[in-house]
């Protein structure tokens, strides 16, 4: 059969298409092989492992179905509270919708204009519900993540604004001070803060005592231990956050500020109406990265508290490590928990991207 290459019914065309496709895959193969060995296959086999119970003495494995996940559900979520608060959640959601509708009528605006506000309200209500019902390692992780990302980003934005002001002769020195933690590993951070927090010879309580304050026993007090780790992680991540925020600031054209000055805007107005909106893509990036980093903090916890006192600093990640590698090894439930963490990160990222779509201003 003779035909031109344009003839879609030609078998030659089909073969060429196939060859082209194969060529594409050939280029992809090296990457796919590496990814398969180090990412995809381990993910699949750890999912298989999460459906089993592995004997702590070695090679015996029992298939247990979803039992590990059921146990995790009970460990991580207060089922009783979840049921008790569910009606409140539904009522709160309905009220949010009514409130936004009412607001739009009051303002004589179409409802569609307030969709993003409704979205925020719903996310806020659901977040409150989730905080109320989680327990154990999930609760620790959630508190830890909120407690490091929000203050961390806030502080670094203001530091970056301060550093970007061309006033100080020693500004390079101040930048250095803030950037230094970047080169320090999390384990070293842990060791440094162990000394800072030491109940007898630690600096923090010494400084506090000069002010007449009797400092807490940072690492063994059930309420303070998590704060102690948050501060250490916050310090270590600060350098990175400030660098990124500084880069974001420098990409904002000075013409906006000049125009604002002409219009008589003061410093706060400039920050509020120019800097923050134009910095929002950077802030969003920082928020995603910091959330994921906070969920994956290990070094500081291992060096400072090893999850204690009790289980007050045992985050999801540390719980996984603890179950799999400490004491009696329980690889099955640890694998299941790592899947829970994976799903959690996926959900958080999706939520953050949704917020980003409606709120982040790209220049």
């Amino acid at each position, binding site marked *: 059969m003779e035909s031109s290459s344009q003839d879609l019914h030609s078998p030659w065309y089909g073969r060429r298409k196939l060859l082209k496709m194969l060529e594409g895959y050939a280029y992809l193969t090296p990457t796919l092989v590496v990814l398969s060995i180090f990412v995809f296959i381990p993910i699949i086999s750890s999912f298989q492992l999460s459906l089993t*119970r592995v*004997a*702590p*003495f*070695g*090679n*015996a494995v*029992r298939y247990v179905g979803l039992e590990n996940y059921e146990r995790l559900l009970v460990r991580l979520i207060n089922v009783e509270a979840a049921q008790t608060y569910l009606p409140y959640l539904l009522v709160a959601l309905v009220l949010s919708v009514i409130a936004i509708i009412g607001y739009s009528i009051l303002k004589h605006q179409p409802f569609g204009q307030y969709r993003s506000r409704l979205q925020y309200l719903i996310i806020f209500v659901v977040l409150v519900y989730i905080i109320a019902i989680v327990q154990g390692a999930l609760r620790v992780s959630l508190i830890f993540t909120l407690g490091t990302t929000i203050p961390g980003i806030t502080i670094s934005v203001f530091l970056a604004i301060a550093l970007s002001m061309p006033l100080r002769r020693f500004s390079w020195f101040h930048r250095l001070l803030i950037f230094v933690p970047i080169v320090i590993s999390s384990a070293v951070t842990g060791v440094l803060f162990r000394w800072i927090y030491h*109940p*007898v010879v630690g600096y923090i309580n010494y400084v506090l005592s000069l002010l007449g304050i009797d400092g807490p*026993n940072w*690492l*063994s*007090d*059930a309420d303070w*231990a998590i704060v102690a780790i948050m501060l250490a992680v916050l310090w270590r991540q600060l350098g990175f956050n400030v660098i990124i925020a500084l880069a974001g600031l420098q990409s904002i054209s000075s013409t906006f500020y000049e125009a604002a000055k002409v219009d008589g805007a003061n410093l706060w107005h400039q920050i509020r109406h120019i800097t923050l909106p134009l910095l929002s893509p950077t802030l969003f990036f920082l928020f995603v990265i910091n959330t994921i980093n906070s969920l994956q903090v290990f070094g500081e916890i291992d060096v400072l508290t*090893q999850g*204690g*006192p*009790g*289980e*007050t600093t045992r985050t999801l990640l540390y719980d996984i490590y603890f179950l799999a*590698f*400490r*004491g*009696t*090894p*329980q690889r099955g439930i640890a694998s299941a928990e790592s899947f829970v963490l994976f799903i959690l990160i996926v959900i958080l990222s999706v939520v953050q991207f949704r917020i980003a779509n409606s709120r982040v201003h790209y220049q």
Partner: protein
Amino acid sequence: MLKKLSVFVLLSVLALVLTTTSAQEPIELQFWHAMGGDLGEVVDELVARFNESQDEIVVTAVFQGSYDDTYNALLAALETDSMPNVTQNFDLATQTMLDFPGLLPANTQFGDDFDPSVFVPAVRDYYSDENGMVAMAFNSSTPILYYNAEIVAEAGVDLPDNDSLSFSELLEACDTIMANTDTQYCITFGQVGWYFEQILANSGGLYFNNDNGRTARASEVMFNQGLGVEVFTFLTDLMANGYAPNLGNTWTDTDATFLAGEAAMIFDSTAGARGFQEAAEFEVDTTYIPHADSAERNGVVIGGAALYLLDSGDEATNQAAWEFMRFMSQEPQQITWHTGTGYFPVRSSLQDNEELQTFWADNPNFLTAIQQLADTNTTLDDGAPNYAVLGGRAGPFPAIRQLIVTAYSRVLDDGLTPQEALDEAAAAANQELADYNAFFE
């Protein structure tokens, strides 16, 4: 003729080959251990001594990190078929090691010239099953009560040299110390599971059912009943009522408190004897750990770790590994080990050893531990084994110990009663036991 000659040549070549290989190629053994720092240096010294003592076996000692790290390395080695010949594992892992597929019980290698009765009974029995010793006790320790002799004397309290106080006697001493001196705390100890286990055993209480898991697999914990509650109430009350600082799950912050003179007494391992002696700026004295009011003193369970023989599949190699383990338990090595670390010698005969007698005269605190163990009633009045002091044995014991650590926090931070906290721990522990035992159904 030719045939005969060729056979002769063949045989002589074979003989030559055999003798040269046995002379030139020593058996190489891997020994994994979890002794870091100063302890690791003593281990290296003993291994070097073994390698110099003969030329058929060469042992390489590999420090693998903590006990948990060493055990996880072993699990990985099992899968990749690269196990060491001898590994160290800690007391609580005994049942798991018994169930470990690669284990070769030490008693299978005992020759006619090996007599297990030379070991301190408590040590030997702890690591034995119905066929005898499965592991070679190596670094054994027990908890003792260390006290600041100056504070105690200042308070006018007279603590017994080698005896165990009851809870109320200890509290009475505490009241006197805190009233007559300006010491902030009477006692300090970390919220680790070990002291609870030991004081429960000293009071004659069982941790697990089925005779502490020694006559059949443990299926339930017993620590939330009777004596267990009494002991846990005593320990948590010490912290709740201000006799002891709440320092959390720690082995080191308590030492700092004791050494700073802020607490008059401390529960700690005998392995810390040398450290306290060298670091303290006051005289440190020792006595036995206390027991419940409702019980007599029973004695202590040995802690520490033992050496396990792993099956290499080759009889000569296994025999060589056993030779090494045996060497480590011999008198000269045990003397070096004891004086270098504070872990006590595991052979009964060493209690009369002259070198050690001199050492103990200068370092009496090292002797307290040995006497406390020698004073342990391993058999009851009716001749039955005293399973309480033989110590609990269960596969998930390490995880269960951790539940007790959590129980401290549940009482001291969350306001549960000791009974409630122990019940909660027991429910989780029983689940762990059921999960483990399900592998043997």
